[in-house]
């Protein structure tokens, strides 16, 4: 098995939508993506989780030919990317990180003009655009100018636009970054609806919660490399613990004590995270609290944040 990513393909029997081997990208002396192997199975929602600069966006951009790979091979829908770029792009939807709606047009015009780039005829395009306005709850803003839209509405329009060609693969690059919680929930709900409808989705995020909420499989990425991958709960079971003791405002001796007990733990900023084995969590919490004065101690479920911390040694939001 050449990489953990390949090993964690949930449906190794199905022909992958994306198949990449040795994907490598260098910008001058900076290696942005380092020999990444990647398979995306049909109908899965695969998440790239990592901090800014991990190489998530570069990886996504290489998958639709926006950025040429320095080395490696990419197949999408079973076709060689370089050779069949136009045909592949015809069946992909892209939600890029930065807002690139056309400010010269209204909401509806943005959908129609984008659809025309795909060669869609107006008689098919208009009903499709109306359907998408409905799907993303934008009907009322049909004739609004882009600058009149809030961040959340703009994001929804970008997603509607990416769906205009009924893509077989949807690439979402940080779909909710910078949005308020309500707008984020609205978008998550739509992405889940797409997933249920069988759309293959690849998304990047630096929000643990987003990855846990949406993705059937998550790849942890840092410094251009994929560290591990799998369904969120498997990753938590493998690298963290079902329950985690999280402490803040603890004396130095508490860390030494935890280390002395050989309990798996990580320090992240001013937090101490302890990963006790199954069923031991409450005992560990009591043990520490009885010995040391602690400002705040909680027992919580293990999460992707813990996985990230254990794999990289630093918190995701560094």
């Amino acid at each position: 098995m050449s990489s953990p990513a390949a090993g964690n393909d949930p449906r190794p029997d199905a022909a992958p939508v994306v198949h990449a081997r040795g994907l490598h990208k260098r910008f001058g002396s900076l290696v942005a993506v380092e020999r990444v192997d990647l398979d995306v199975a049909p109908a899965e929602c695969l998440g790239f989780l990592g901090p800014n600069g991990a190489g998530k966006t570069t990886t996504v951009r290489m998958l639709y030919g926006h950025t040429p790979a320095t080395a490696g091979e990419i197949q999408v829908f079973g076709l060689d990317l370089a050779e069949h770029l136009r045909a592949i792009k015809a069946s992909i939807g892209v939600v890029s990180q930065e807002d690139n709606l056309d400010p010269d047009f209204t909401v509806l015009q943005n959908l129609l003009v984008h659809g025309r780039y795909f060669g869609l005829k107006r008689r098919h395009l208009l009903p499709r655009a109306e359907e998408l306005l409905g799907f993303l709850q934008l009907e009322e803003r049909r004739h609004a100018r882009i600058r009149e839209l809030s961040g959340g509405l703009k994001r929804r329009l970008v997603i509607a636009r990416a769906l205009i060609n009924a893509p077989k693969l949807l690439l979402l690059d940080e779909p909710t970054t910078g949005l308020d919680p309500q707008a984020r929930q609205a978008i998550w709900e739509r992405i889940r609806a797409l997933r249920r409808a069988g759309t293959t989705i690849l998304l990047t995020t630096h929000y643990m919660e987003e990855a846990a909420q949406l993705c059937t499989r998550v790849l942890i990425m840092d410094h251009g490399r994929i560290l591990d991958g799998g369904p969120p709960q498997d990753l938590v079971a493998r690298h963290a613990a079902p329950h985690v003791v999280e402490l803040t405002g603890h004396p130095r001796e508490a860390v030494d004590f935890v280390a002395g007990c050989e309990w798996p733990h990580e320090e992240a900023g001013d937090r101490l995270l302890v990963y006790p084995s199954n069923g031991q969590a409450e005992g560990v919490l009591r043990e520490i609290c009885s010995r040391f004065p602690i400002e705040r101690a909680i027992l919580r479920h293990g999460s992707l944040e813990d996985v990230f911390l254990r794999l990289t040694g630093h918190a995701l939001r560094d």
Partner: protein
Amino acid sequence: MPDALGLLRNISWRAWRVWHRDLLVYRATWWTNLLPPMLEPILYFFAFGAGVGMLVGRVLWEGREVSYLEFVAPGLVSVSVMFSAVFETSYGSFVRMYYQKTFDAILATPLSLEDVLVGEILWGATKSVLSAAVMAAVIAAFGLLVWPSSLWLLPLSAVGGLLFASLGLCFTAVCPTIDAFNLPTFLLIMPMFLFSGTFFPLEVLPGWAQVVGWGLPLTHLASLLRASTLGVAAPVLLPSLAYLAAVNAVLFVLALALMRRRLVR
């Protein structure tokens, strides 16, 4: 630098979809777009006809004596062809590329980068033709055009428009910021505007300046437009046309190559 053939192979008829996008934006504000080319010749004619023209009297061009207004009118059209295209593919394309990220959005569709660039060049040339047509209508009202030879204004404006649209896109490819356009504008566009036989015959300049002048594409465009508005079939015309075609080809490939170097990383 990518090879020229590879760039040309990336072009498809889909480029017209980008042209169509620009046309839709233009149509939405057609009135403010058409006003400048309508007013420009009227202002110029007042300045040159009532002002400069009174001082100059008649001008000798290709062995023929014409009034100053007859001389300067096609020169003004050539200037307008140049400015329309250059500004569209420099400032206009730069805004679409850099601020609006319109190119990025289009590149996620089946269009190639070269499709986008060719669409922009075609649109720049279209603006030149539109502007030349409007100006010609105004000039015709002054009785300064010879028909039917003046109909050549339109295809010639298209040739010139393509050339200057490619030139403007070269600027877009090398200018790091939008303010940097001042440099090519003042080093190249303004001298061309003034010293291309647009406002006075090149023959009045010293010999070396005439040589430089004949190297400028606008000189050839002005001369071709002047021949059509005056109804002259002069022998200098064919080499001028050939020169414009050659510069067109070079700038077109250069624009595609420089833009690919800028945008594909």
